[in-house]
């Protein structure tokens, strides 16, 4: 198996790894770095549970070749909270009852994070469009949309205060 050297920053921590050349970013996160907050399911970019933020954009990490992430920045759900303080998206998901089994939630939250960073004042429709690549079988999406809308408002208020 050919190995490649990978220099990758995950949640602000720099890693220098030697990995099989065919590994996906998801393989590196879950198997090499043992960050299992990012979930695994279809492995064909259809379900979205593996979504992480790569250089500011949400991607299905199961279909991103790790070797192509050389020198890049990855954000996963594990890096969102600051100490004991949850991110406003995480708080809103709890508060609005948007979490059931929770397996889609890391992917949903990271999708929402990248989306809100670019679109601080979304509409419900645009939120639905943004998360359409991530399947949730439990919630019917309604409370997830509620949570993202509420988080958007709080984040923009925080932004104004800062």
């Amino acid at each position, binding site marked *: 198996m050919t190995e490649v050297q990978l220099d990758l920053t995950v949640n602000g921590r720099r890693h220098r790894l030697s990995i099989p050349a065919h590994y996906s970013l998801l393989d590196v996160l879950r198997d090499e770095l043992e960050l299992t907050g990012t979930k695994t399911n279809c492995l064909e970019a259809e379900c979205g549970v593996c979504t992480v933020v790569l250089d500011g954009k949400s991607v299905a990490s199961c279909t991103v070749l790790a070797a192509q992430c050389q020198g890049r920045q990855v954000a996963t759900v594990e890096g969102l909270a600051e100490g004991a303080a949850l991110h406003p998206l995480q708080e809103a998901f*709890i508060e609005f009852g948007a979490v*059931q089994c929770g397996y889609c939630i890391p992917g949903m939250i990271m999708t929402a994070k990248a989306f809100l960073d670019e679109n601080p004042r979304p509409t419900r429709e645009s939120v639905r469009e943004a998360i359409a690549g991530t399947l949730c079988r439990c919630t019917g999406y309604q409370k997830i949309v509620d949570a993202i809308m509420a988080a958007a408002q709080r984040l923009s208020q925080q932004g104004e205060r800062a």
Partner: protein
Amino acid sequence: MNSPFRVIGKSFPRLDARGKVSGKAIYGTDFAMQGMLHGKLVHSTIASGEILSVEIEEALAMPGVYEVVTAADIPAQRYGSFVKDMEVFASKRVNFVGQPVAAVVARTAEEAEAAAKAVRVEYKEQAAVFTTEDAVKADAPLVHPGWQEYKAVPTVKRQGNITNQARLVLGDVDKALKKSDRVFTHRFVTNIVHPGYTEPRAAIAHWADGKQLHVWSNTQLPFEAQATLAEIFKITPSQVRVNVTVIGGGFGGKLRLGVEHYAAAAALKVGRPVKFVSSCEEEMTAALPRQPLVIDLTTGVTKEGKILAKAASILVDTGATSGSGVGVASSVMLMLAGPYKIPNLRLESRSVYTNKTPTGSFRAPAGPQGNFAVESQMDIIADALGIDPLEFRLRNIVREGDLAPNGQKLESVSLEECLLKAADAIGWKDRRPEPGRGKGIACAWWTTTSGSSGVYVKVGPDGQVFLNTGCAEIGTAALTGAAQVLAEALGVELGSIQIVSGDTASTPFDYGAQGSRTAFAVGNACIDAVGKLHQRMKEIAAKQLSAKPEEIEIENGVAKFGDKSLTLKEIAAIAQTSQGGLIAHGTFIAPPTLHDKERTENMVITAINSPSFHAHAVDLSVDAETGEVKIHDYVVVQDVGRAINPTYIEGQIEGGVVQGIGQALSEEIVYENGIVRNPGLTDYKMPTAMDAPNIRSFIVESPSKVGPYGAKGVGEPPVIHPPATIANAIASAVSARIQTLPITAEKIVRTLTEVSETGK
């Protein structure tokens, strides 16, 4: 609001939320052990035939491979819910494409997968049968030629490919049909759909000293997994310990063994822990999807719109094993009869083998199929009689004190209220607001599954309360609901409760997270435990306060005698130093639902326990050119008895409706000669956030006598009505009456073209 409750009825956040939003919850796919190896399955490539040979040499020589495991490595043993027709690995013959024949164990999952492809299985192919209509023919090839040797529960009546023939009979149907002004007969056909949980089935098994099997998995039913694994490996249940990980959704698809048995067989052979995770393709080809049904339904009515009789013939396609399909064939008859008052019934159902994927118990196992038939036909009849469909239902629905089709007396019947509220909310008076737009309505009842529950409730010296239950949390937040019941009854805050769940070695037995029963049954066991805790508290407080136990009053968790008192925390601290702590074993078993056994023949499910009632209504448009359906508004009115946590009840409703919309409009596992044509999520279309409408939920509280604080089962009902509700609205919008699921855009266009060509 003046609620008499402190904790019940309030939308507290679920107790396990933080771990889930921070990525720290450990699911089945995440769980790992030191020294663990990985397993992958080798699947049958033919639908029916004998196994001539299994060549493993090439696979064994591949990098990283430890062992190849086959039927020869484990006891020859068949298992199953009603008929013991399943085996871990096919031993002599295979009966569906995708059936596990062997497993490869390797250092990594990747190596195991590569080697699994190198295992060569030679077959002698035999004739297969793919539809129930073919399978019941006298000369049909047998899916299980050895069926007569299988053990089965005594209730079932089997013959060849038929695993049970059951009937529900009342009155004289032939006479009533003759007396009817109009008689309607229709065929309804439903689709095979996957539960669609986002976390695939996963397990790790480890044999300590070769005799004690320890399994960690995302099973919904740890105690059933324990019992089945014991049966398979010919050991006693206590030699098996099952621990449940966090579960990424179940919906009934994780009730039966998923991959635990493969992991256990592999671990036994290699002597190390082995992990199995289903691939997406395995989920779509060899998991436990919903049974597709063919329902021929005949109804006789008077011209005033009174139903006089119903007759039905039902074929349940269970796939290659009977599984819970035998149960579906029984419970669908309870769905087909009602929620209506019908004096004459003759319902006949057969569960039937075909050479396809074995099926399971997807959420409300017979609900959507039966409801689609009954509620579609109600609209067809109403239209033919010129009666408003809502009015037609109101003339026939069951009301307080009526008898259900099985003769059980119905209590706490809220169906009329549900229907009227749903109609009102959707704006029923204006049923066809514009061309291409229409509204639909459907109603149903559903059972709250019984079974026994035990809990240990333990209070720590710091006042923290442990709710220790054998029931798993599959995502619904039902255990948070049970904890709310406990907090209410014990007089503590919800925040002081911690849940410990799903360990067959240390948690008391529970019939498990299935059948809308978790909050209901575990909640009731908590109430029982609180009664016992209160007794202990009185005894301890009496000693401390120089009183008699019966003189002590307990109020909000505080024991009082005159002006002296002791808090729960103080009593727990005393109990810890003086008598091994404060703990109680609470239990619950639902009282049997009395019904008329004369009416049922060979039915394995005969009653609707603590029935809940509900109605759905939808407002949608259909694009006649493209067949595209656009849902404007979706309304659910559901009687939950008592709303323990309104937010999560809405969560069940919203999630269930969207899952039901998937079955109604887009989802289907498509077979061609027994081969799944859409084995991935690209072509198996579950609703996305763009497909899901906003849903308005209205909760009705008509308390049950049995449930905690009057609660009824909540989780399954929302998935029942969407196919019928949507079919009715489409028929009302564009006059396309579609009787086969899913109602794809294509089918709508085709039907509309046929209608315009025949000039109807």
